[in-house]
């Protein structure tokens, strides 16, 4: 019985193991119609969809940012120096993420894990900063239900915070899985995928930081 029959002049189709989440147990890259791996394509599509999610939330915020009734408004509560630092920390984490992807491509497990953990820590720091910011705002009289401004602000930045948190969980899990050698296939691609997500979350934050914090000030 013949092994995989390759038709004349044609690449072998993706005939085995259409894996989710990069668990390629067969080794060897898949041949896809576009040459782009399924996982990466799916991640791009997902991020495209996420753009509209944040687009909707940002639009809501832009519509409502001036409507704070008698409650505190953006000019009163925002602490621009702090948020600038936290934005910078998040941007730094993008840098460490790039280094993680580089290490993964060089098949350097040790540094991959190191950079992943550094990225995760910076991300956790950002989330911590957001928790601090929310707590402070709340105590300054800006509750979730106070005004349209507050509801849309907390929803927008909260959604972003949840995305960062999920990203941190992914990074930690990835570092752990690499450590246990559970990824037998193309590690670099998995790291790259998480990296794509992480960069996306950072870019969204740059947009939010600009539109929410900087422009009204």
């Amino acid at each position, binding site marked *: 019985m013949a*092994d995989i029959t390759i*038709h004349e002049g*044609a690449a*072998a189709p993706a005939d*085995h193991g259409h*894996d*989710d989440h990069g668990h390629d147990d067969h080794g060897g890259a898949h041949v*896809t119609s576009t040459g782009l791996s399924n996982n990466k394509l799916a991640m791009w599509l997902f991020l495209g969809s996420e753009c509209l999610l944040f687009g909707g939330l940002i639009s809501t915020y832009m519509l409502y940012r001036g409507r704070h009734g008698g409650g505190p408004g953006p000019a009163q509560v925002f602490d621009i120096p702090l948020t600038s630092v936290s934005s910078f920390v998040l941007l730094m984490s993008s840098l460490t993420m790039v280094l993680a992807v580089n290490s993964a491509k060089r098949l350097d497990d040790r540094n991959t894990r190191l950079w992943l953990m550094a990225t995760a820590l910076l991300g956790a720091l950002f989330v911590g900063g957001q928790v601090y910011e929310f707590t402070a705002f709340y105590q300054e009289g800006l509750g*979730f239900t106070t005004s349209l401004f507050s509801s849309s602000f907390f929803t927008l930045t909260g959604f972003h915070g949840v995305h960062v948190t999920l990203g941190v969980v992914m990074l930690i899990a990835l570092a752990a899985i690499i450590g246990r050698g559970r990824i037998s296939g193309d590690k670099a691609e998995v790291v790259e995928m998480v990296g794509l997500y992480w960069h996306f979350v950072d870019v969204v934050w740059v947009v939010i930081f600009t539109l929410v914090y900087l422009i009204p000030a």
Partner: protein
Amino acid sequence: MAIIERPATVPAFVGDASASPPALVTPTAALGAFKRPVSTTGWKSWVFTVDHKKLGLMYGAVSLFFFLVGGLEALLIRLQLAAPDNTVLSADLYNQMFTMHATTMVFLFVMPMAAAFANYFLPLQVGARDVAFPRINALGFWLFLFGGIFLNTSWVLGGAADGGWFMYSPNSSPLFSPSHGIDFWVLGLQITGIASLVGAINLIVTIINMRAPGMSLMRMPVFAWMQLVTQFLLLFAMPVITVALFLLSFQRNFGAAFFDVEKGADPLLWQHLFWIFGHPEVYIIILPSFGIISEVLPTFSRKPLFGYKFVVFSGAAIGTVGWGVWAHHMFASGLGPVSVAVFSAATMLVAIPTGVKICNWTLTLWGGKLWFTTAMNFAIGVIVLFTIGGLSGVTHASAPADTQQTDTYHIVAHFHYVIVGGAVMGLFAGFYYWWPKMFGKLLSERLGKWNFWLMFFGVNLTFAPMHILGMQGQPRRMVVWPKKLTGEGFFNLGFWNQVATVGSFTIALGVLIFVINIFVTAKKVEKAPLDPWDARTLEWMTASPPKEHNFDSIPTVHALDEFFHRKYEEVDTEDGPRLVRVKSAEQILAEEEAAGDAHIHLPSPSYWPIVLAFSLPVIAYGVIFNLMLSVVGAGIMILGLFGWVLEPSVADDSDYDPPAEGSGPSKELASIG
């Protein structure tokens, strides 16, 4: 002959027990739980399956069930409206009924039924062995099922949603709709929304990345093209409704201010978000049906689709322009004249690609050799009914005219012609066309004709009078209509209301006959021929129903309508060139089998999709009744997610028990990885 590999354990307990027993126990005995589910028969093979065909069938069965539910709701609505000041339904129940009728039909029937066809036939049409992410595919199905069930449990848990499927704020706020119905609606749609989103990503990747060698995008069947456009629309439309639903549920459940007018909220925010989703949604509903009839019409006309490229590009154009017209649902909302004028003009623009499609279908019939099967009847029915719906749509693309027509029965007539006449009839064309492929048996054509004509007349009888009702001043969403506003003469509005009610029961009769047809066909012993319609596309180039791995060898594609061109060749005769059949479907299949691949790995079934999907309704019930339950649900979800992530897509050898009978050569362990 190709086989699906089923690794044996090392070593296997097979055959006689007296042989010297091997040293280790079998995985099942040892592990019990947490063996991967690998059975190919029985209920486990369905519940844990990741096979796109099984999932497609389950999608179909479940949406058909919801179709009957939604239809029942429609009949109750029509019964209530059969007489002036009728009392079949109370006002409260009526409001719930029309809300759930629309929600069920759109989200639980037409969309998932299109997903059923996409699941089953996209991989077959593009020559793949499965979708790109089979477990995500399973997740999508279970989310849809659980979301649908969740949504409908509201009937017994304090009443269903009563704000209309458009759920305009502030009528949807707790002050004006205190029952939990809207909470169920919001969370149910979130759950089915996730299903649509993951399904969209999966199918797009499948279409873009997993086409058979030689199948360039412009050699793809139109159904695959229309699904590609649909899935892109879903990909971008779903997050918008997700945002809207989040805002609403934060308002209802956590006191956020988004739609609180006293705090300065603008109720039009909801309308914009809803319709930015809602209008692409219209094309999400209709494009799969366009795809189906673009398969059916050429097959039964025995010639290729007229202007393939134009049909494809007009589909893509509809998908693009469809994003810029949402505000035509809001012409009476007070947007201001400039926006109204712009959106009015943009809306008319959408009519152009739609017109192109209708012309191309008609021209596909032109000069063909038409075979009027039931599938063909339904497809032609789509052209006719959709044309009516499209043209009445043009009458309210004009904003001033729309201010008279919107929220009247004229609109109800318009979109039912489009959705029932366009989408649902198209899906029925798909049933009759692909049934032999899915089940290996032909649906009865005799019952099918009854089914078609009852539905065709029923649709016209129900919805044509609604044009008149609307233009003569009967608004929508009215539990009663008063005698004093019906006018005079025999053809007064009361008469047309009764005609519409009779029509709705005619449609119901048609659907009943379809259901009967399913059972009659299931009892039938006679098998369908391999290629009953002399079809044109790849899905017919395999067994009926297809083997688990779809194709023994992945076909190489040389042309649009590959299968047809393998069967027919042009031969020169004295009367000029003639198409002559050179091969039968059976011969082609035999060739493919002979060249079959030996080692085909299919992804293994998995527990995790259903576990993960199950967690979401638990969380949702928690949001409504008690957040502690949400915590439990979140726990299940995290468990499911990590279980999923840590699970290889192909089961370990050790998960397989020894094959039941002998370890013949076809079952022997192939080398893995």
